[in-house]
């Protein structure tokens, strides 16, 4: 059975102007232990999707609806607050982009670790302390015992993110959502953190959703990837398939503007136009205004889901196979 099933997830904000659909009909499933990437530009709805799954969006003003939002058999949409709180932290855990702002500045690291443990696992203070030390060592923080009494501002960015990972994995969650977890870090630290998460989650068998706008990161880490635009998933499939045989105008655009080590000197192709208006629930393809591979049909009909070999799907009418060669 799938670990997480999302079908028709829509998160909307109602404003004086109209309804903004930050997430518009998103569907995907996640198997236990699978690593899924969620890519797209800023504002594509990646973070809001994750927050909506965890029901961390403030409702109102938001409204989270879905045909199905199921985690390990629990209906997250209709669950009562208590159940949701039990799942958060121990079933699904999340790490955020800016570790400095995501850790409480006036509580010690030790306290922020042990409180999660005490909340979800039935252990006493001392056992929690010992476990906290283990966790810190697990994420590679030296002199763990001494650091239990430290405060977040005494750590560097990379170390803080390690602490966040420790907190997130402390109760052995079945799903870890990493929301731009490396974006705020230096490149070398990024690599360390990515590797850390990869190893730990592999050992624990945790499924991971990596949210990022960094295609390279996702390509190296994930089994499958969902490409999001304007709150919808426009392409999904195994990483190799999607990145080597992109089948949506947006994906091609994204890849086209990603710098490549093996193509030094080739000019990058930016995607023209401005970010989409999320109030516009157009029946046509949302990427149409900015797409350079659009065909006449795109202006008339709604894009249908086309399937490609290997469990690869895209919401695009154009045939982009001719472009695949130039991407190799």
């Amino acid at each position, binding site marked *: 059975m799938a670990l997480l099933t999302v079908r028709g997830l829509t998160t909307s904000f109602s404003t004086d102007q109209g309804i903004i659909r930050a997430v518009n009909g998103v569907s995907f499933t996640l198997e236990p232990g699978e690593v899924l990437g969620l890519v797209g530009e800023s504002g594509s709805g990646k973070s809001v999707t994750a927050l909506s799954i965890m029901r961390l969006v403030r409702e109102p003003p938001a409204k989270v609806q879905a045909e199905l939002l199921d985690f390990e058999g629990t209906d997250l949409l209709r669950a009562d607050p208590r159940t949701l709180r039990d799942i958060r932290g121990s079933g699904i855990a999340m790490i955020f982009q800016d570790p400095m702002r995501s850790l409480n500045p006036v509580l010690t690291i030790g306290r922020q670790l042990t409180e999660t443990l005490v909340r979800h696992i039935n252990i006493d203070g001392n056992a929690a302390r010992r476990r906290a030390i283990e966790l810190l060592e697990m994420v590679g923080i030296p002199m763990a015992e001494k650091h239990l009494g430290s405060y977040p501002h005494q750590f560097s960015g990379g170390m803080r993110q390690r602490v*966040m990972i420790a907190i997130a994995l402390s109760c052995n969650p079945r799903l870890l959502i990493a929301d731009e977890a490396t974006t705020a870090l230096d490149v070398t630290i990024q690599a360390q953190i990515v590797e850390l998460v990869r190893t730990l989650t592999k050992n624990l068998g945790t499924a991971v959703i990596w949210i990022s706008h960094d295609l390279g990161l996702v390509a190296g880490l994930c089994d499958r990837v969902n490409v999001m635009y304007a709150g919808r998933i426009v392409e999904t499939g195994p990483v190799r398939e999607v990145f080597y045989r992109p089948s949506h105008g947006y994906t091609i655009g994204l890849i086209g503007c990603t710098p490549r080590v093996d193509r030094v000197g080739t000019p990058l192709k930016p995607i023209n136009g401005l970010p989409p208006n999320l109030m516009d629930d157009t029946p046509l393809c949302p990427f149409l205004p900015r797409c350079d591979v659009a065909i006449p049909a795109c202006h008339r009909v709604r894009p249908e889901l086309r399937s490609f070999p290997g469990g690869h799907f895209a919401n695009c009418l154009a045939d982009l196979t001719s472009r695949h060669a130039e991407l190799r």
Partner: protein
Amino acid sequence: MWRYFASRLAQIPFILIVVTMTIFVVVRSTPGDPVQIMLGMETSPDAVAAIRKEFRLDRPVAVQYVLWLGDLAQGNLGRSIRLNTPVTQLLAERFPVSLRLAAGAMLVALCISIPLGILAALYRNTWIDYLCTGYTVAGFAIPNFALAMILIYVFSIKLGWFPITGIGTGDAKTIFGAIGPYILPALALGTLQTAVLTRLLRSSMIDILMQDYVRTAHAKGLTPTSVVLVHALKNAMIPFVTMVAIQCGYLIGIQVTIEYIFAIPGVGSAVLSGVINRDFPVVQGFTLVIAAFFLFANMVADLLYGILDPRIRY
């Protein structure tokens, strides 16, 4: 941290000198002959001259000030011209009374502002928030003596629950007898001080609740109570506690109208009668102590800030 406080301590003498000098100048600029006013028109010129000499009123102003400072260094604040008792003794009698009143007012303020501030931040734009806003707004607009008058009328005269005099008379035999006379004045004083504190707590909490670490706390599955009371409140307490310290110092000065209405023998009313009776030593001595207390309260506030916020290490 100590270097910072050392520099703060060093500033204190300068500040106190400016304060006392200003008061001195004001006092000495009083129109009319103070001694004559005090003793009345029928006193013999010899008596007047003798009093003048004793209180050094025959010397130039600057000299008087320096001599006063000299006395101060020896712990002598002079004698009250009217009561003929040492100012220090009067201070010893009156300061504790004012402190008790201020403490009572602060207690009232804390009991109201902490829950109200938290609730208003949690339930923004609901009736609780509007109540809070209305309360803080009214708190700035009602003069505290007006509130005192209402309280006296309702609780003392009509209902007879609380006495309105009796502080400092020393015949309190029961706890209620001891605290009773303080209740109404503390309510009058404290309810309005609350406005500042409630506003501060509410806006701090609103800011804090928007922070990323609160979102993390929710993502960890912690109960809302824990998130608010531990994660959020602890951060909000830092500016709050320092404001409480500052307000304590401030209260002592503001109390004068309340002390007047309730006939409380505190420092405010001492300054008031000192001013009316042209009792210079009292005015000078009491103002000095009040200002020093205020400075002390501010320093405590800074100290607390440094202690409570782990990010600050001077």
